[in-house]
């Protein structure tokens, strides 16, 4: 029975491979800028996207809007559910919902960014669905249909509420991952933006050994964190000998602000018992 089942699997797979006669769609469309950061004036602002068809067949771009965010690792998330679409409609108005581009054609799409009373920052997204003009609308037995689109995230701040911008970041947790040879460590610092505006976040991790000797510091890579979002910063350290315990103090900072330091102590024995990593969340900090 087992051999017969495998035979069936192979037959189906081969049939699928042979049956897949559809080639990948090759249409080249460039949209620039791929991300827009605008401070909206009290009377509203305007912006433009440049659309360029680098392909050899005409395409139609269909535009819509939604909202954006990012995951803990920084991966962007784009939302186009009805609520997100409704929310974004008040933040950005498109000059056109459809644009046709011939081969080699370049056009601009105007964006109107109205002033939103009381808004400090907003993060709408513009979606551009790419449809070759010769695309068939209906094909029998097409189980899976694909729509490909480009997302252009917008980072909007408002001049009228400039004084109300409050970048506020806290270190939520620190994790230490020991390397295989006991000398390398990876330090993850998780930061939450509890403010009301995005900002570039930098940071450092100070390391001290068991006897209080200074083992140096790690600089965290600069990354942007949106309000309400969490982002993890990772740095790697290497020591000539295994420091135990390893004391870590993490802090993040930006232009004109600095978070409270987040102290954490890592001990190898305890961590190995917990599966090889330590979680600093919940430790008492100096705040």
């Amino acid at each position, binding site marked *: 029975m087992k051999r017969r089942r495998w035979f069936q699997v192979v037959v*189906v797979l081969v049939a699928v491979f042979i049956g897949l006669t559809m080639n990948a769609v090759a249409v080249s469309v460039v949209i620039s800028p791929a991300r827009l950061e605008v401070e909206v004036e009290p009377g509203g602002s305007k912006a433009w996207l440049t659309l360029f068809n680098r392909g050899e067949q005409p395409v139609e771009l269909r535009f819509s809007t939604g909202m954006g965010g990012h995951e803990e690792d920084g*991966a962007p998330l784009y939302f186009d559910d009805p609520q997100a679409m409704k929310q974004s409609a008040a933040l950005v108005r498109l000059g056109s919902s459809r644009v046709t581009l011939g081969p080699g054609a370049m056009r601009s799409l105007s964006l109107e960014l109205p002033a939103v009373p009381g808004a400090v920052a907003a993060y709408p997204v513009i979606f551009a669905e790419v449809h070759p003009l010769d695309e068939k609308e209906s094909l029998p037995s097409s189980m899976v249909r694909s*729509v490909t689109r480009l997302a252009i995230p917008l980072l909007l701040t408002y001049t009228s509420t400039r004084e109300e911008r409050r970048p506020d970041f806290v270190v939520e947790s620190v994790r230490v991952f020991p390397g295989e040879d006991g000398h390398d460590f990876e330090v993850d610092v998780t930061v939450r933006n509890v403010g009301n505006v995005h900002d570039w976040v930098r940071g450092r991790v100070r390391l001290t050994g068991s006897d209080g000797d200074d083992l140096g510091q790690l600089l965290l890579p600069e990354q942007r964190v949106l309000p309400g979002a969490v982002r993890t910063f990772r740095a790697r350290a290497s020591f000539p000998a295994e420091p135990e315990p390893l004391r870590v103090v993490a802090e993040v900072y930006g232009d004109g602000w600095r978070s409270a330091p987040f102290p954490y102590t890592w001990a190898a024995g305890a961590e190995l018992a917990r599966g090889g990593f330590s979680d600093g969340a919940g430790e008492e900090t100096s705040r």
Partner: protein
Amino acid sequence: MSDFKGFAIKSNCTRCRWIWWSGRGATRAWTTAMFTLFLAFFAVGTSVAWAASVETGQTTVTFSIAEAIEVVSWPPAVLSLGNDAIPGVPVVSTILNISVKANAPWGVQVTSDSNDGTLREYDTNAREYVADGRRVGPLEWATNMGGPWTPVSASPTAIFSNQPPTGEDGVTRGFLLRVTPDFDATALPPGREYRIVLTYTAGVGY
């Protein structure tokens, strides 16, 4: 005639304009024009030479590049995963490629028009899903045959994230789709099919 007073030989002559343009008048005008031209060249040449002798020309060229992203190719708009699938036997697509050029970190996410990632019964004549129709799936994706396999859903899921800038050559990333029908999934009558719409969104990060 007042325009020609300075040049006319005989100012009281009603034909002096003609005289000025011909004969002796023309010679004088030609001389005057040449002299003026010479003065102009001399002035320009002198000023250029003076400028060259006292300062160095400098041009500051500024250039900035906007972040841009280009999807060069992507999976086919319609894809059939086979017409005679057997319950319990996974049906796996070939590798579906998406090629991107970007000068900033980028990623691709996928969402489906089905909340739970199942393929739903679709009426091809009415062009709509059948209310309370039959379902099969969910449809799953993976970046290689060994998995892990993740069901698609209406919530955005990153297939590729934090990809570095590609350079001019661009980058092609592949993934697979899989559906495993069971005995709850029955064959559909003509004019009906199981369908799902996947939306791939490529973009740069924040």
